[in-house]
């Protein structure tokens, strides 16, 4: 566990702020459905997964969404934008408690998230909550996701997960 309190200041404020901006890009690009730009936040050989807390706690490998590398992400984005059938909706992320811990060349990052879903014609409803458990790497000036895992708390999904969490 990299989450203990022993090295709270291990990563500097500037690093933290850069990571904060990465997460801001991440949620903003998702919530405004600019998914092609969103893919740009990931490393070529990244792994992106949406996993239930149930499987995560039991050490079961199954994910709800699993994209390997930018190609895998592009396939998912292509399906969402051009292929899948679903009703229009607006998702909204709030992220809190971003923690950054140095890890080799990059950082291990964790944060809490809550996501709402507003289906066209309906009111805003709570959709999901959970925790990001990510690995960030620096290339030049940029921070990117080398690994991103969204562990969602609820046992039951509200019908369908159209967009990445």
């Amino acid at each position, binding site marked *: 566990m990299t989450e203990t309190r022993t090295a709270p200041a291990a990563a500097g404020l500037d690093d933290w702020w850069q990571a904060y901006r990465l997460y801001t890009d991440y949620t903003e690009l998702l919530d405004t459905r600019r998914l092609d730009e969103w893919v740009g936040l990931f490393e070529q050989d990244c792994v992106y997964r949406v996993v239930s807390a*149930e499987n995560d706690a039991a050490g079961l490998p199954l994910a709800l969404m699993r994209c390997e590398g930018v190609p895998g992400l592009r396939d998912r984005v*292509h399906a969402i934008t051009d*292929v*899948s*059938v679903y009703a229009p909706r607006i998702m909204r992320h709030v992220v809190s408690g971003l923690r950054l811990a140095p890890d080799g060349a990059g950082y291990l990052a964790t944060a809490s998230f809550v996501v709402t879903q507003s289906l066209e014609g309906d009111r805003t409803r709570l959709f999901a909550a959970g925790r990001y458990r990510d690995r960030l790497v620096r290339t030049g000036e940029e921070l990117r996701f080398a690994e991103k895992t969204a562990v969602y708390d609820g046992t039951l999904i509200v*019908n369908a997960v159209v967009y990445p969490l």
Partner: protein
Amino acid sequence: MRLGYRWPSEDVSRIPHWVYTDERVFALEQERIFAGPFWNYVALSAELPERGDFVRSWVGTQPVVVARTRSGGVSVVANRCSHRGMSFCMEERGNTKTFVCPYHQWSFDLEGRLTGVSFKRGVRGNGGMPADFRLADHGLTTYRTTERNGVIFASAAQEPPALDESFGPDMVHYFDRVFDGRELRVLGYQRQRIPANWKLVFENIKDPYHASLLHVFLVSLGLFRADQPSRVVMDGTGRHAALVSRRGQQVSNEVTEQIRTFDERLVLNDTTMLAPAKEFPDENTVVMHTLWPNLMVQQQTNTLAMRCMVPRSAGVTDLLWTYFGYADDDDEMTLRRLRQANLQGPAGLIGVDDWEVLAYHQQGLASAPEAAGVVEMGGRGVGNEEHMVTEAAVRAFFVFYREVMGW
């Protein structure tokens, strides 16, 4: 005739919307179907490897607990204490020697026998249960169980027919094709709440007609298409069915021209995602197996999953997915199964199509319960077909449904 309803047609080429929307119909289904002389899927044996392992499950709307008993057998009991009625099991799974209800600590063995009543003889001469109170009179409600090649079923009926009888030879064939006796390994769970009647969820897998049209991803990648060699097989009663097909090529032809959504340019950037590996004796690449009343067994290329329906109300169904492989899978095969899992499930590349359509299907039905659907693709018959251009399995389902429900 019951509930003042009348089926709109002699045959099953019409299905009234009210079977999907009326809570009284739903209640009657619980009694006649889920509590009837049929086998409800409740768990995989692989979820209960050790004596004392238990997992919560459902028989229709009834909460139950499935356990591996001391003798190594399987038991299914109602999750309802015989004292005051509490759902005593508050955890999804675990291991225990006895079931202890937290409220007053009545304890039961894993077969549901009442083995202990706290303060039964009172405290220092005070209180306690009456002299004529017999533990034997107060066991938990139990279910008949059967286990076949690693799959556990339960029935509320006193003497349900044997599983293979209830399946019939063809369904046993397809069942044993996946459950061939090899030990299974659970890869994980997916669970979703679908705002649609359980029969819509069930029919969706009995309806190959939609698969060729709704699922662009499936169709365009040639994973499943109307022009591919395929069959719809049913048991004698029509309640069970298997949709069997073979993966084709990604080509356009006079058939794909009939499919508005066909997109021959659709290619995967990550080709590993759906890369198949032959693992079954026959040439079939997809077998979607619906086993009355609550189970769908999915073999989509190398993704194997149990889809268990838990009906919540006329308009709500929980769908619980258990993905699995075989204990002897190598890492490559496991990885393959995990990758292909992207296709189905609550976030599936084609799954999403179904869940969204089902939600809007229920909305349409709810707006006009007195109206009826038209089920005539492939004619009005209910027999097996050697192709996918038919709603025969849906019709067959309703032949049996009408019989059981008395309509």
